[in-house]
């Protein structure tokens, strides 16, 4: 279900593994949320036309957050062929075209205008009821996005338009605008309205987090910090840490009642517009009635490290819903599964997992020579886009196979690797400590016991040094060598 980047990547990867499947979508064309959003300006995810690696190579993916991942070189780095060169952030229409072009060129077939409406079990099959008849399958994958408006329980909020209902910017000219929410969607609106609104207030209970401080994609991105600067320079924008007690609709305006947490002081704002930039949930329809547990304020499905429902085996999720499978969160590092740059890798791994577990398709597992092992691991740490985009979340796994020797077992969820143990193996990932240092970490599993081996950091993020080689040899000795 779904024809956004998540659904397209999973469908593409399943096709290349030879797994028969169908893709249905309620939309009329590919692109998912990028058919509508973001409202103002451009995406938050970049694609660098010029980077240290040639476009189309695997290493280049680290610098291109928006292209999906084909095997065929001619379809790789597609976003770079579509952007007009005026910014390294694609515009919304460019992103939509990137996804539609990927589907068209790689042959991802979607039945559009087919809305999934209900779900039931029939023996060993799942039955998906849709506006275009019933579909039966062994394995459903729900990649239906996280773009359904979500509002917290605040008296009067039902009268307030959501971010999704924002009008064209010029209609806010000369108006007082109150934005509930201090995350990216709130700051995006404030940025777009800076030149139009007479006054902008951004409010939520806890202080705004900025990505440059959290050192992650959690937090307001640098591009949307302008309203914050306006606030600290007392230019007219107000950024307030307060809970919203209630909203009253009056003749032609609103009264928003707020309360500050620290001083317990009340402030009432009279404004012309209120917008709830309070986040999104996923339209998972009747899945909770079938036992799918949900988690968090916006009630996303709780998932295993392989993006399967934690409570209903055989039900999988794709795309941005993967953000509710948070992994280990070591040192607080969040996954990037809420963005295309993160979940495109999850999608590829999920396809491989489904193919192996449900359709007996054995993935390719190349042999690595003993002489190449150390250099292979350190080159992965230095250049692997999966590890850079999904720190402490995905890991390259190498296992010792009694018959074949040292075998590359692909990129897998780190949590799965650490919690299953088993054969002698080594997993390498990248992590980041509180001081902001990024460094490779090796996890070795020897006779069922797991050990963690952090390697030194490097100012240039190049881990192919003799110091790192020695550390790797010491860690893998007796495990793989």
């Amino acid at each position: 279900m779904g024809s956004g980047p998540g659904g397209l990547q999973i469908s593409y990867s399943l096709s290349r593994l030879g797994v028969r499947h169908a893709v249905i979508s309620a939309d009329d064309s590919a692109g998912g949320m990028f058919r509508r959003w973001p409202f103002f300006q451009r995406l938050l995810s970049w694609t660098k036309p010029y980077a240290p690696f040639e476009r189309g190579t695997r290493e280049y993916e680290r610098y291109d957050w928006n292209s999906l991942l084909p095997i065929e070189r001619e379809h790789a780095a597609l976003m770079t062929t579509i952007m007009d060169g005026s910014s390294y952030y694609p515009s919304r229409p460019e992103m939509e075209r990137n996804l539609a072009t990927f589907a068209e060129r790689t042959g991802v077939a979607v039945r559009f205008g087919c809305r999934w409406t209900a779900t039931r079990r029939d023996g060993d099959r799942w039955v998906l009821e849709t506006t275009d008849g019933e579909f039966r399958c062994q394995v459903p994958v729900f990649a239906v996005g996280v773009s359904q408006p979500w509002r917290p329980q605040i008296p009067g909020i039902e009268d307030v338009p959501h971010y999704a209902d924002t009008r064209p910017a010029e209609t806010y000219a000369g108006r007082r605008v109150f934005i509930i929410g201090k995350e990216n969607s709130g700051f995006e609106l404030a940025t777009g309205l800076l030149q139009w609104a007479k006054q902008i207030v951004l409010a939520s209970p806890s202080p705004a987090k900025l990505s440059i401080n959290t050192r992650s994609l959690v937090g307001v991105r640098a591009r949307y910090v302008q309203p914050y600067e306006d606030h600290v320079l007392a230019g007219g924008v107000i950024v307030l840490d307060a809970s919203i007690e209630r909203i009253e609709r009056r003749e032609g305006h609103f009264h928003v009642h707020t309360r500050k947490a620290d001083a317990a002081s009340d402030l009432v704002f009279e404004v012309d517009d209120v917008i709830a930039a309070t986040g999104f949930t996923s339209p998972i329809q009747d899945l909770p009635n079938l036992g799918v547990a949900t988690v968090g304020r916006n009630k996303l499905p709780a998932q295993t490290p392989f993006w399967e429902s934690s409570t209903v085996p055989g039900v999988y999720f794709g795309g941005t819903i993967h953000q509710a499978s948070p992994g280990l969160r070591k040192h607080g590092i969040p996954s990037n599964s809420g963005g295309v740059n993160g979940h495109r890798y999850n999608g590829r791994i999920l396809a491989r997992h489904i193919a192996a577990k449900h359709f007996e398709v054995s993935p390719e597992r190349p042999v690595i020579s003993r002489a190449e092992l150390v250099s292979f691991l350190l080159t992965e740490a230095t250049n692997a886009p999966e590890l850079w985009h999904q720190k402490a979340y995905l890991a390259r796994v190498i296992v010792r196979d009694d018959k074949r020797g040292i075998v590359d077992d692909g990129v897998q969820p780190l949590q799965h690797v650490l919690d299953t143990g088993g054969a002698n193996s080594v997993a390498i990932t990248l992590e980041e400590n509180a001081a902001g240092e990024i460094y490779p970490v090796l996890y070795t599993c020897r006779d069922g016991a797991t050990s963690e081996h952090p390697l030194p950091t490097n100012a240039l993020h190049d881990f192919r040094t003799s110091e790192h080689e020695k550390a790797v040899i010491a860690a893998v000795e007796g495990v793989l060598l």
Partner: protein
Amino acid sequence: MRSAPDDATETLAGLAIFADLSRPELERVAHSLEERYFAKDERVLREGLSGSAFYIILEGEAVVIAGTTRVNTLRRGDFFGEISVLLGEAPVADVVAVHPLRCLMLPGQLLQEFLQTNPRVCYRILVAEARKLANATRGRG
């Protein structure tokens, strides 16, 4: 309860360590903690693994396993993970969900600021730690 609670603030208000907070304070706290769900048998805390977090149980049950021995059972309102975070060391035991577990999580590096911003929560935690220490001392005696 399979579904996440509708009002996180209400849920927090029912936990002893947040008992002294006003509603706006609870809202601020609710916004700074992350809800996590753990299936039965899933590990929450891993012995020897760096970079762990602080957890407060909202529902379900977990056990603390040191080596191969179950040393404690944790339930709604109990919290764990703070010792390894405060000492900057890896946990010395596993914590494993024995029933589906719903927790609030705060990444380790945010715990210090959280405790300094919420001294009344800090006091409640201190009392709970004192009780644990007293029980352990009595146990040895």
